[in-house]
């Protein structure tokens, strides 16, 4: 099969790295060649973060370019607007509706754009989910990443057990039940 490209975008500190690790493990378990690319360092300090995940029979480039992503999984709505140009024609945007103000908005140097979901929906196939509310429903605001993995899982042709197994292998035992609940809430979100 040809290479599939997924981007996970968000704000430093939101747990995007755990989500990409989880996804990588799921894909590896399916026997794919997998490449993941992330940037550490400066971007962790509340900055815009992006992880590229690519899989298929044989993957070359570890990065995804503009117009190449089959799926963008976004942890924050402004980041969806920032990265939408990376979505290919006919690709899918799965986005959290959560808003985290960047410093230029906090200082008043810039305005946070309005009606982003509506605008993006006119541009692409968009699924918007309030992952923060679902995470809180599952028991912790920190489970936003697993909720979003749940949302993603519904759109990928991989058995549910494979996702649950990867969650078991990735999250600490004492948070397992909460994370499983978060995953289910995301998976069943409309």
């Amino acid at each position, binding site marked *: 099969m040809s290479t599939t490209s997924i981007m996970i975008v968000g704000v430093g500190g939101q747990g995007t790295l755990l989500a990409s690790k989880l996804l990588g493990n799921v894909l590896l378990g399916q026997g794919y060649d997998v490449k993941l690319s992330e940037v550490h360092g400066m971007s962790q300090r509340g900055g815009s973060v992006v992880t590229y995940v690519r899989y298929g029979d044989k993957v070359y480039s570890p990065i995804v370019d503009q*117009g190449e992503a089959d799926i963008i999984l976004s942890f924050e709505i402004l980041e969806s607007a920032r990265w939408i140009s990376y979505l290919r024609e006919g690709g899918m945007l799965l986005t959290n509706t959560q808003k985290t103000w960047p*410093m230029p908005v906090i200082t008043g140097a810039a305005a946070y754009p309005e009606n982003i979901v509506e605008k993006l929906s006119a541009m692409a196939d968009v699924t918007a989910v309030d992952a923060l509310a679902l995470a809180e429903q599952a028991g912790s605001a920190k489970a936003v990443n697993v909720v979003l993995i749940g949302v993603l899982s519904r759109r990928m042709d991989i058995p549910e057990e494979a996702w649950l197994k990867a969650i078991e292998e990735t999250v600490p035992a004492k948070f397992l039940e909460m994370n499983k609940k978060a995953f289910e809430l995301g998976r069943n979100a409309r």
Partner: protein
Amino acid sequence: MKKLMLGNQAVARGLYEAGCRFVSSYPGTPSTEITEQAALYDEIYAEWAPNEKVAAESAVGASLAGARSFCAMKHVGFNVAADPLFTASYIGVNAGMVVCVADDPGMHSSQNEQDSRHYAIAAKLPMLEPSDSGECAAFVGEAYKISEAYDTPVVLRTCTRVAHSQSLVELHERDEKALKPYERNPQKYVAAPANAVKRHIEVEKRMLALSELAETTGLNREEMGDTAIGFVTSGTCYLYVKEAFPNASVFKLGLVNPLPVKRLRDFADKVDRLIVVEELDGIIERHLRMNGIRVDGGKDLFGLLGELSQNKIRAAMGEALPKFAAYDEAVPGRPPVMCPGCPHRGLFTVLSKLKLTVLGDIGCYTLGSGAPLNAVDSVLCMGASIGMAHGYTKMLGEEAAHKSVAVIGDSTFMHSGITGVVNLAYNKSIATVLVLDNSITGMTGHQQNPTTGLTLQNEPTYPIRIEDVCRAAGIERVRVVDPQDMAATEAAIKEELSADAPSVIIVRRPCQLLKYVKAKPPLAIDKDKCKGCRSCMKIGCPAIRFTDEGGDPEGMPSREATAASHSGGLRRGASKASIDPTICVGCGLCEQMCKFGAFIKPEEKEAR
């Protein structure tokens, strides 16, 4: 067995498999994880050195002792290690020695994008360049073989996309190497002129022999396909070329210094157009042109700046790019910021208020240069703050010295700030140095350093006291302040600035992200007391925001309110502060800024 591994993790695996016993490094993005991962293998002794020069010298010593040795550094770290490494090229090795240098094209977290291949050429060291994690592990083994066969340290060059990408690695057993006996050989190991003159001959002979190796080694390979275009490339660029032109012919270079001539000429003869794809400088291209090999495209197509990608290659080659739609409205940037509760925030708020000239340094506190603090005047390299403050105040005199400070972190101070302080005392400076001691090496992701009292393995060790070092270096005015107390910090800075002697203020509070630093409950706002004066916004805390009193249900200020506050507060007081309780750690810095007592601690909130 295959495992998904970060490039850096794969380098560490390669070290383990190759029987490496000694690793010494200074952290630097994107090289840091190699040493952290190497430390997880019991068979490898691994440590954080105070800087790259010491790390490289230690690795040379371990090689002399007969152990396969290693050090890792970021590209600018090679500048620090260059002194020992240029001469290590002359004295060679006993057991194999490998140095990994991680370049950062695109400057994801660096102050420049120098191309380390120049160092390999200048120091006459062989250099290998892997493309992915699998090659990271395999090339380490190859590097040790070359090191021992050709009696030379070998450089392994990665870049951000190789170091911080994960791909599959085939795991092998460790090839345990016994210590190679050390035999005294001053003619080889004492780089005094009489010996070095002879060693230089050996170095040149070695480079000729390595050039022969370049013509035969499997590290370089030809992949023939469609011969209309032939690409010559290496490292991560190889992957971009294969992505953009899967059917083209490619000459992939794994040994990037020295480069082959004959094989590249043969390849050029087989293809219609020869295109060289390399990030940063045109080193392969220059080599080809110098040897009279036809180049039909290179730096003229791809330029000298930043990273390449599959689309950049497609575009430069005149291919159609994938279609995409961009968001049609300006998307505000999201620059990295100091974390909520960051101990640097209090200090930079004071520096910003006092309008001082701040000679900065490398670390999280470089973020003090961003809005709204805008408190940093210069950042050059590790340790430069102190040297620059000395030169600056010497030339501009007492008045400037009373209005300028050097700002440097604890780990950076240990790395290369100490000699700067020695210079202040020796050359009768009156500069003021602020050492920001947050008890950890922060920006690279929490590594221990000589001041923290813990080793790489978190074992207790002697905690070097910065105040003792400064006093021993001849600084008489040394004091400690807590940046959380902004009034006391301001008073201390004013007092030291007015002194006609060099002084050091240690601004001490541990990083908020350290596990033992507990967050306090988030603060709240008393909306009746908040006058909307925005004083609290001066600290640049991501947890404080101003929301329109009119009340957007999602707490977003209206465009009018944003425009008003931006244009100087036409509707001053129209919006009020609010706190994001999910990220506030209750540090209380905002409370110190507020003249109206609008910030409430949780217990006060309950009492009301």
